[in-house]
């Protein structure tokens, strides 16, 4: 366990009768960028606050660099934290904001100057050092907030939705900057967000959380391509995966999901266990895994559908169609246009589809 940076063991937290986290376990490797992803109220920020030491845990342990820090003060944990609202001290200049923690820790003046200079160079905020936070733009403020963690020379960076208060353009700019920062510093970073794009682009591994439980912990592509359960499948991807509730049927050496009178041939699906005839399942198809008006490869059956709505998005074109009595979305290349009412032929690549058990909601 030498290369583990942060380790959370059997962590539980409850406020009165409400249990927010229940015996949660999580190991984060040294230098790893881990994203905690979930909708609001799933406990992701709470977990981060526990790791930071800002919340007392009810039970369990937290290790940082193999040191048990469960009862340590935040400052003694070797962490730096960046907040959604930037949390810059409004009455202090940028320079004072950066050096405050070091002054509290009674670091010698020359050392403080050196570290502030280095951090402001990395983040390109040298011209702003004498300004007050109120004189900075949102992006500059968040840069200063990152700098505040940077000067403290910490092992672990904690980000609590750092980009959520920024507008879309700045968000994507800073996202790239954070990724670059991680590549050059190679620190362990734990990043909380509800934005799946941030999660997919930044993470080495993503922990998808729901009601205080980690639903799946894996690298972004695994999370995207092979979601472990129905929740993860529906949460990741925009527009979200198309789901068809149906029943498994095995006939003539082939397997079908029978949903609303439509048979989906799923023989090509890499199932983990043999299919059981009559099992109630949910078939999940990502919009980009549906082919429109293309020759079906091999013996794949094709389906007829009618275009309901077309949403051109530039790079791609989103079609909403009716199939098996329900609406489904399909993503095709931007230059291929279909007027509403056009009849199309669909075929599916079942090798990249997902099938879940309807009751346990787990991947088959």
């Amino acid at each position, binding site marked *: 366990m030498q290369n583990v940076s942060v380790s959370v063991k059997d962590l539980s937290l409850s406020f009165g009768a409400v249990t927010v986290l229940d015996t949660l376990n999580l190991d984060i490797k040294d230098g790893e960028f881990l994203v905690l992803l979930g909708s609001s109220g799933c406990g992701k920020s709470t977990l981060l*606050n526990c790791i*930071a*030491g*800002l919340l007392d845990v009810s039970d369990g342990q937290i290790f940082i660099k193999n040191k048990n820090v469960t009862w340590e*003060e*935040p*400052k003694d944990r070797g*962490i*730096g*934290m960046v*907040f*959604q*609202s*930037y*949390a*810059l*001290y*409004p*009455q202090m200049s940028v320079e004072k904001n950066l050096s*405050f*923690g070091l002054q*509290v*820790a009674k670091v010698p003046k020359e050392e403080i100057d050196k570290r502030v200079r280095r951090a402001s160079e990395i983040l390109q905020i040298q011209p702003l050092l004498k300004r007050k936070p109120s004189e900075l733009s949102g992006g500059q403020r968040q840069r200063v*907030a990152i700098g*505040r963690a940077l000067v*403290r020379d910490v092992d672990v960076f904690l980000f*609590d939705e750092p980009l959520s208060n920024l507008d879309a353009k700045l968000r994507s700019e800073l996202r790239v900057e954070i990724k670059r920062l991680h590549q050059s510093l190679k620190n362990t970073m734990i990043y909380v967000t509800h934005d799946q794009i941030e999660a997919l682009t930044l993470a080495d591994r993503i922990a998808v959380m729901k009601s205080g439980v980690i639903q799946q912990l894996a690298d972004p592509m695994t999370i995207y391509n092979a979601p472990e359960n129905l929740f993860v499948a529906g949460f990741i991807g925009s527009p979200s995966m198309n789901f068809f509730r149906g029943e498994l049927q095995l006939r003539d050496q082939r397997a079908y999901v029978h949903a609303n009178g439509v048979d989906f041939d799923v023989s090509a699906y890499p199932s983990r266990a043999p299919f059981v005839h009559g099992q109630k399942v949910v078939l999940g198809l990502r919009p980009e895994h549906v082919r429109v008006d293309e020759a079906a490869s091999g013996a794949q059956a094709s389906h007829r559908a009618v275009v309901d709505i077309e949403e051109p998005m530039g790079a791609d074109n989103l079609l909403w169609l009716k199939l098996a009595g329900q609406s489904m979305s399909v993503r095709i290349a931007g230059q291929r246009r279909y007027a509403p009412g056009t009849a199309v032929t669909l075929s599916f690549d079942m090798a990249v589809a997902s099938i879940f058990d309807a009751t346990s909601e787990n991947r088959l």
Partner: protein
Amino acid sequence: MSDIVAFNSVADEALPQAQTDRVVAGPRGRKPRRALSGRNIMIYGTLIIVALYYLLPLYVMVMTSLKGMPEIRLGNIFAPPLEITFEPWVKAWSSACTGLNCDGLSRGFWNSVRITIPSTIVSIAIASVNGYALANWRFKGAELFFTILIVGAFIPYQVMIYPIVIVLREMGIYGTLTGLIMVHTIFGMPILTLLFRNYFAGLPEELFKAARVDGAGFWTIYFKIMLPMSLPIFVVAMILQVTGIWNDFLFGVVFTRPEYYPMTVQLNNIVNSVQGVKEYNVNMAATILTGAVPLFVYFVSGRLFVRGIAAGAVKG
């Protein structure tokens, strides 16, 4: 396309005419409003009447205080003084008699200063730390502590007077300024703590968290982070305390001896003294002198007061 061209050419020819037409015809720009509408008359009329209602007593006081007694006996209280004299003011300040003392209000003024300043400073210092601890450091029993404090605010003062007299007596500070200062400090605690707690709770919690991650402790966060952000609420607390304590009569008369009577008590004694003629001009001057301090405080810091009230008291 040809249609559009044709239309354009027609428009071009007709342009000068059309422009002037547009200016003349139909409403354009800001909608005019009548200054003397019924609505305005109602609003300003009411405001003026209410303002007069409150200002008239002050006017009568100032006028009376500047008259000599013979002029007052003429009976016209609204008339400005024919002969302006400042003698009543001088007398009220330095030689009006209360009982055996004949050194005017000045003694009461200095007593009030000696009561108000320490009470204000001590109560604000304690209450702000209370509020900060309650808002940011949710210690065990914080809710209970806060509830007890707030309930304290609803118990009528009269109920507590006698027990406090006994407590002060047992502590050996009954009748002293120290005792009165302590009473004022304690009685200011519930409302001030509530005020500060709500203000600090309204500040972004992440600032407090950031300071903790930066390694700042209880006092460092209080002095370096919270205090610099809290000027408005300190001004509100200061105004509440200064005016409240300065205007206090009951505690002043109950918990002190005559030589320590605050200004309000002395004013009462001057105005209600039964010997000799009623010197209305001296009484008026004395009253204005007593009220001058809270008035001054309001005028100087009224703007901050409104801002602080809006920031602190409403939220939470």
